[in-house]
């Protein structure tokens, strides 16, 4: 789904942001890009969405070679990529519903599809009740869920998230991760750049650790720090399929999306406040 071969990115002025990175991310994978600020996480995300081209090396995004793709075909590629950012990037003069519908409107989707898809995705992120509110009246976590709904409403093959929980408190972050996990379970490849230890350690997904533009570690079911430093939790916490009462719900992604008893529905922020105890065990998020 995403394939990087010996990718190097040097910015104007000679700053080497990414150096000789090779990665192969398969369909349906959930990958964390971790590392300190300046390690090249955001640059990799931008390369993966073809917002920028590598100085050297090759990138294939959903089967398309990024450097060979003509600029006029970039929009078509972008429709198969959803993007989520730390700063939400919501339009303040549109309601929650309109912000999500915008992604379908501007890609020429028929009105009937918009009318059926937008409520469904708002339900998935648990914001059905807030459809008509302006983004500024929402909490940070709610705003980020709107931006995830917008990224997902066109059912992309790949979802790229650059520090999606960077502005959110740990409890709210859990709600966000729950939704990203749902989306991943529909078959969407998710790549998330983060430096949130707690989340990475709790999810136990593939971890690609970057340091000064190089891949230092690429580990499936990994944790944030090297395994010797961070104490591993006994059981990997699966945020998405853990219900309020703690019982594990092995429902498939499709049933999760279609069922009325969506775990993210309702008041997720209230719900997740009961869960950080699980995260606290894995270490400090800061």
């Amino acid at each position, binding site marked *: 789904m995403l394939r990087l071969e010996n990718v190097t990115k040097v910015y104007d002025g000679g700053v080497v942001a990414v150096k000789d990175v090779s990665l192969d991310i398969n369909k349906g994978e959930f990958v964390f890009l971790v590392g300190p600020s300046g390690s090249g996480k955001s640059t990799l995300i931008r390369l993966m*969405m073809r917002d920028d081209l590598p100085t050297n090396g090759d990138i294939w995004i959903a089967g398309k070679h990024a450097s060979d793709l003509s*600029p*006029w075909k*970039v*929009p*078509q*590629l*972008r*429709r*198969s*990529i959803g*993007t989520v950012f730390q700063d939400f*990037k919501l*339009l303040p003069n549109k309601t929650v519903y309109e912000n999500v519908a*915008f*992604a379908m*409107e*501007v*890609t*020429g*989707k*028929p*009105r009937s599809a*918009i009318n059926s898809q937008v409520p469904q995705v708002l339900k998935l992120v648990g914001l059905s009740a807030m459809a008509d509110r302006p983004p500024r009246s929402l909490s940070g976590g709610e705003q980020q869920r709107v931006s995830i709904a*917008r*990224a997902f409403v*066109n059912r992309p093959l790949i979802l790229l998230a650059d520090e999606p929980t960077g502005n959110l408190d740990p409890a709210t972050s859990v709600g966000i991760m729950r939704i990203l996990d749902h989306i991943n379970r529909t078959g969407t490849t998710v790549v998330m750049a983060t430096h949130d230890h707690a989340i990475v350690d709790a999810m136990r997904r593939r971890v690609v650790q970057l340091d000064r533009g190089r891949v230092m570690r690429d580990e499936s079911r990994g944790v944030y720090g090297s395994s010797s430093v961070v104490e591993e939790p006994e059981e990997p916490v699966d945020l998405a399929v853990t219900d309020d009462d703690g019982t594990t719900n092995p429902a498939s992604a499709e049933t999760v999306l279609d069922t009325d008893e969506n775990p993210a529905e309702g008041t997720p922020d209230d719900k997740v406040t009961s869960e950080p105890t699980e995260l606290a065990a894995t270490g400090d998020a800061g």
Partner: protein
Amino acid sequence: MTGLSYTLREAFTNISRNGLVVLGAVLAVFVSLTLTFGTLVLGEVVRINTLQWAEDVRVSAYIRDDVSPSGIASMQAEMESWSEVDEVFFMSRTEALAEARVLLANRPAALRVIEDDPSIVPPSLRIKPVDPEDYQTIVTRAEAMPGLLKVESAAEAIDGMISLRDGLQIMTLFLAVALGIAAVALIANTIHMAIYSRREEIEIMNLVGASNWFVRTPFLLEGAFEGFVGAGLAVLVVVGGIRIASNQLTDLPDFVNIAIQSDYIVRNGALVLIFGVVAGLVGSGLSLTVHKYLRT
């Protein structure tokens, strides 16, 4: 057709959102094109009048008394063979006297001199040039012929007319180019501001994969619309101006004609409108090309 309705809605939403800036651009186009169109029309008035006067441009070759009628006929035949010459006709002394009586009706003293001695009004060949500007060539060639007293033309009057006409044409061209550039620049600036004020939406459109045309068309439409409205106002003002002028200026001298063919107005009015739309498209196109929020 959500695409089309979206495009139109966005174009007009933006016009209403940035009302003052849009008004500024429309006024700039309006003033530019009013001046340009006005100068064009003025040039046309001068052209029509110089055409009329040029109709009357003649070179007069006065004939010596000792030339026989057959000699005059052969001179006339020779002149008619010149390529610069349209036609030549002979004016006898009697006809010349009749003309002088008309021309000098207000100057009895001068007329009396002629009446006293009709021999000072010689017979002449009146030569009509094909192109009024060629009169000097005809004068030179005629002066080389024997049997002529003097060759004359309304040289200064013709030169004055021609230089006025050429001057107006150059001025029109210069104004049209300078003001056209100004109109394009002002529309480009308006669209630049429109893009800036919508940079967040454009960023998201680029993120979610809106096609390049989808992002750009509302701005092109907006520019074209502003150019069209400005040009439309200019046409209305100039046409109105012509109407008022032809109604008010009834006591002009007979030889000045301000009646302009309506097909000239229609043809050039349409050109001005097209120019307005093109200026709008070029202006917004320029903005779209250079704007950093639109780079992919």
